[in-house]
């Protein structure tokens, strides 16, 4: 394939509840350190949640933080850190040729809840409703804030794809590069969802909100005692370029996006569909021209709901059950469910496997659910000494959206 038809990752900017850069994050994943806190939520009280502690003033003024949104702030942090990591010469770039594609599960809930609460303090007099409400809640807000902060004049928008949004953002970025719409794509996903009680309350009403006396043990995919999702915030934005451009400037290439698929279950609002998930993975493999046993890591979406984990394991089993060299892991046990950022962050945590040859485990599995048994599920202890050449990253979301993204070790 020609170099201008190949899309590569040349920078990673991220913040997760257990790390504000890839090194810190990776170290915590390999040392099996979860970092889930407790939030005192409006109307709900203390609830386990993944909270990021990046320095928001590193790239923004106080005024920007007051006017903007948390999702915007997470996006700006990730975009700036990703650009620094990429080594792009920002000053010499054509700002019209940079695109920003940010995946989000939802946007606007946080700000709307805050405004309703605000006017409740004034007897629901709507004269007290903020004029900042609309720019904060338009769906393009997180991506738009990045362009404002960085002076980017290319396209920007968010990709609403429920919890498949992180993958969807990256896929969108890759597609725009292939179309020649932009020369650099800042792409991935973000989440500010922990600031919305409604997200937590919705999961609780659905019987899908995790509870545990120890927050760090609350998120436990595949474990018999799992009882739901830990909602988290976070973000990961990647610098994507065509290989031809990356080579020209001698960029450090982290990996190559070699295949993807997004499909729809068309079967239920919330229940997953193993058959469609498997189809999604298979189609991504086909695009990448790989067989299932070419994949070294399947980074699962599993959120620690009873049904979701079982269905996904069924899908993984059907595609990778006979592949002896494919290992399976999960990241949500460390950081909870980072919603729109989940796919992008979970991929980020696995990318260093290309160089360190270690597969981080999923933790908090004290008693594996027999229905989640998979031949090479990496549990509680890292698997070392594995040559990792290809990663398949799965992310699924409500309304039956499935995504699979394949990243390969870069080679000519």
């Amino acid at each position, binding site marked *: 394939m020609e170099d201008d038809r190949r899309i590569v990752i040349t920078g990673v900017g991220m913040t997760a509840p257990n790390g504000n850069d890839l090194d810190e994050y990776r170290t915590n994943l390999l040392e099996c350190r979860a970092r889930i806190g407790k939030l005192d939520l409006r109307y709900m009280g203390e609830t386990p949640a993944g909270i990021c502690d990046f320095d928001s003033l590193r790239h923004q*003024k*106080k*005024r920007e933080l*007051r*006017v903007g949104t948390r999702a915007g702030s997470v996006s700006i942090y990730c975009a700036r850190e990703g650009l620094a990591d990429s080594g792009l010469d920002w000053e010499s770039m054509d700002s019209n040729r940079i695109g920003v594609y940010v995946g989000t599960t939802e946007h606007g809930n946080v700000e709307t809840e805050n405004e309703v609460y605000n006017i409740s303090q*004034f007897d629901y007099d709507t*004269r*007290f409703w*903020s*004029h*900042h409400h609309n720019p904060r809640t338009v769906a393009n807000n997180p991506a738009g804030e990045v362009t404002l902060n960085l002076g980017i004049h290319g396209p920007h928008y968010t990709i609403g794809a429920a919890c498949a949004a992180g993958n969807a953002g990256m896929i969108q970025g890759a597609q725009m590069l292939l179309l020649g719409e932009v020369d650099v794509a800042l792409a991935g996903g973000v989440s500010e969802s922990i600031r919305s009680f409604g997200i937590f309350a919705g999961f609780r009403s659905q019987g899908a909100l995790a509870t545990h006396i120890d927050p760090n043990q609350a998120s436990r995919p595949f474990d018999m005692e799992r009882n739901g999702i830990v909602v988290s915030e976070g973000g990961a934005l990647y610098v994507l370029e065509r290989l031809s451009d990356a080579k020209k400037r001698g960029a450090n290439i982290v990996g190559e996006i070699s295949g993807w698929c997004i499909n729809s279950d068309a079967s239920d609002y919330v229940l997953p569909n193993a058959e469609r998930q498997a189809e999604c993975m298979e189609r991504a493999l086909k695009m990448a021209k790989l067989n299932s046993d070419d994949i070294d890591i399947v980074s699962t979406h599993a959120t620690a709901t009873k049904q979701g984990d079982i269905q996904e394991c069924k899908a993984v089993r059907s595609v990778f059950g006979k592949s002896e060299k494919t290992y399976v892991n999960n990241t949500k046990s460390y950081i909870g469910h980072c919603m729109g950022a989940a796919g992008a962050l979970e991929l980020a945590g696995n990318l260093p496997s290309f160089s360190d040859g270690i597969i981080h485990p999923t933790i908090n599995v004290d008693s594996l659910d027999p229905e989640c048994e998979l031949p090479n599920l990496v549990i509680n202890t890292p698997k070392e000494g594995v040559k990792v050449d290809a990663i398949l990253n799965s992310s699924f979301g409500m309304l039956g959206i499935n995504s699979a993204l394949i990243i390969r070790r870069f080679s000519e």
Partner: protein
Amino acid sequence: MTKEEVQKIVIDIIEEIAPDEDVSDIKPEVRLRDQLDLDSMDFLDIVMELRKQHGIEVPEEDYPKLASLESCGEYLTPKFNEKG
């Protein structure tokens, strides 16, 4: 309430809505936008905070009267005093 006291209230509001700005040396006669990094949304914030914190209404046609600290004092002092 004196004009100076009202101007102090306006400065406190500006300090809240533009936390990166140095408000210690605002020149009363000079337009606020010419000496501070404020945009039209910030002026709406000033209007909102006057409403929220002090129950003072500034109709849209009077927004130009908030241009400088001096004009804020002239315009708002009677409003504060009417309110009692």
